[in-house]
């Protein structure tokens, strides 16, 4: 598994220009007083973009097939990818958090930004299995449709859910959300392993 980490880290290194650019934009946004929520979500989702780039590299010329000819199992590949995905997304979020917190920090900002992080994780849970199953290009379309559906569902139920949520304190809400994220990640991981085992490379 160490080799897989090395591979993804080296590929990350080669994307350094892209990363620096994102952070710079983030700093500019902070300077321009954009909302902390906006900055947080921006950087978090840019982080997920880096994660999906790593899949692109693995599928460009069917490199994944070769990886499994090396001493890596499909299970190891999955575990490494999830650890990588969560770590990269978390670090992106953390950078945004540190930047926004430099100027302004209170309970509300922390909870809202945590919600952004968890949303990023949910996004990963949905998208990783889809990418493994359908490849990067098709996955983008599928995920777009799913997100649209989700958005519509949330939007239509927003007011009623909103009223329900206002009965609970921020802590409890974020706690529930964390639990949902954990469940989503576990389901996602199991699906990915299953898809990967059946995949024709």
């Amino acid at each position, binding site marked *: 598994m*160490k*080799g897989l*980490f*090395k*591979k993804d880290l*080296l*590929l990350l290194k*080669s994307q350094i220009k892209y990363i620096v650019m994102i952070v710079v934009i983030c700093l500019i946004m902070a300077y321009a007083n954009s909302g902390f929520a906006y900055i947080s979500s921006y950087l978090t989702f840019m982080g997920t973009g880096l994660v999906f780039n790593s899949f692109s*590299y*693995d599928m*460009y*010329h*069917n*490199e994944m*097939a*070769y990886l*499994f*000819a*090396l*001493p*890596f199992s499909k299970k190891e590949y999955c575990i490494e990818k999830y650890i990588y995905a969560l770590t990269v997304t978390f670090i992106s979020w953390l950078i945004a958090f540190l930047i926004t917190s430099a100027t302004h920090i209170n309970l509300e900002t922390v909870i809202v930004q945590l919600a952004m992080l968890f949303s990023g994780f949910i996004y990963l849970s949905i998208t990783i299995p889809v990418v493994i199953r359908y490849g990067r290009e098709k996955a983008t379309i599928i995920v777009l449709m799913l997100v649209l559906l989700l958005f519509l569902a949330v939007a239509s139920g927003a007011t009623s859910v909103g009223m329900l949520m206002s009965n609970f304190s921020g802590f409890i809400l974020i706690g529930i959300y964390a639990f949902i994220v954990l469940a989503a990640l576990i389901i996602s991981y199991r699906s990915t392993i299953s898809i990967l*085992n*059946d*995949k*024709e*490379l």
Partner: protein
Amino acid sequence: MIHIDHLKKSYDSFTLECSLDIPKGVITGIVGMNGAGKSTLFKSILGINLIDEGDIQIPDKQDIGVVLSETGLSEFFTVSDMISILKCTYKRFDEDLLNSYCQRFDIPLDKKVRTFSTGMKAKLNIIIALTHHAQLLILDEPTAGLDVLTRDEILDILRDYMEKENCTILISSHISSDLESLCDDLYIIDHGHMMMHEEMDTLLSLYGVLKVSKEDYESLDKDYLLSVLEEPFGYSCLTNERQFYSENYPTIVIEQNHIDTMIPVLLKGERL
């Protein structure tokens, strides 16, 4: 080294079915047309894709060196990057050996592999398979798409490795002449099935293709013919007793004993 027992893998267009044993210290070749099932077989052996039925036994992947056709480590890496990855991957990775191979073949260490020529990429893929003291090499079309000089170089690299490490090699190709000069043993695969398994020495010394007119064919002793293919001039006949025909029919035309001449008669002809 490799033991395959009744492997079966079905696709829409064909089914791969075979059993074979690759003994230690032998160079085994598998030849077949494009789409015959060579890559499917190799990926099944390596556990890259699931199989429907059967049992496959291979050594630990730490001891296997692999070349797969049309893929490898990401081409966005430089050779130095690949070295860091391989160091963490293979316990017996030999960095000095890889460096010396790269020097020998003028392969730059710090340029992205996607800038390399096809020949250089192919050489690099082989070098990667040879630099962790693997006891088994599984090579899927390592010389595909290469010019004859580069192919020769690669075959020489393999012969060198065989001499030094006395390992086992399983190599596939659709270029029969490459296999003739390297392999001890040959399998011919077609439409997912093994059509023939013979020692290279026997194939080259005892097998032959007879070319006869229709009239001569009538009076020909067919006991030692394996397969017959109708031709414009008459028939091409594959035999595994070339000597018999050259002695009893001194005027008969017996083709050069090359695998490329045998394959059409074997695969397209009628079995006897």
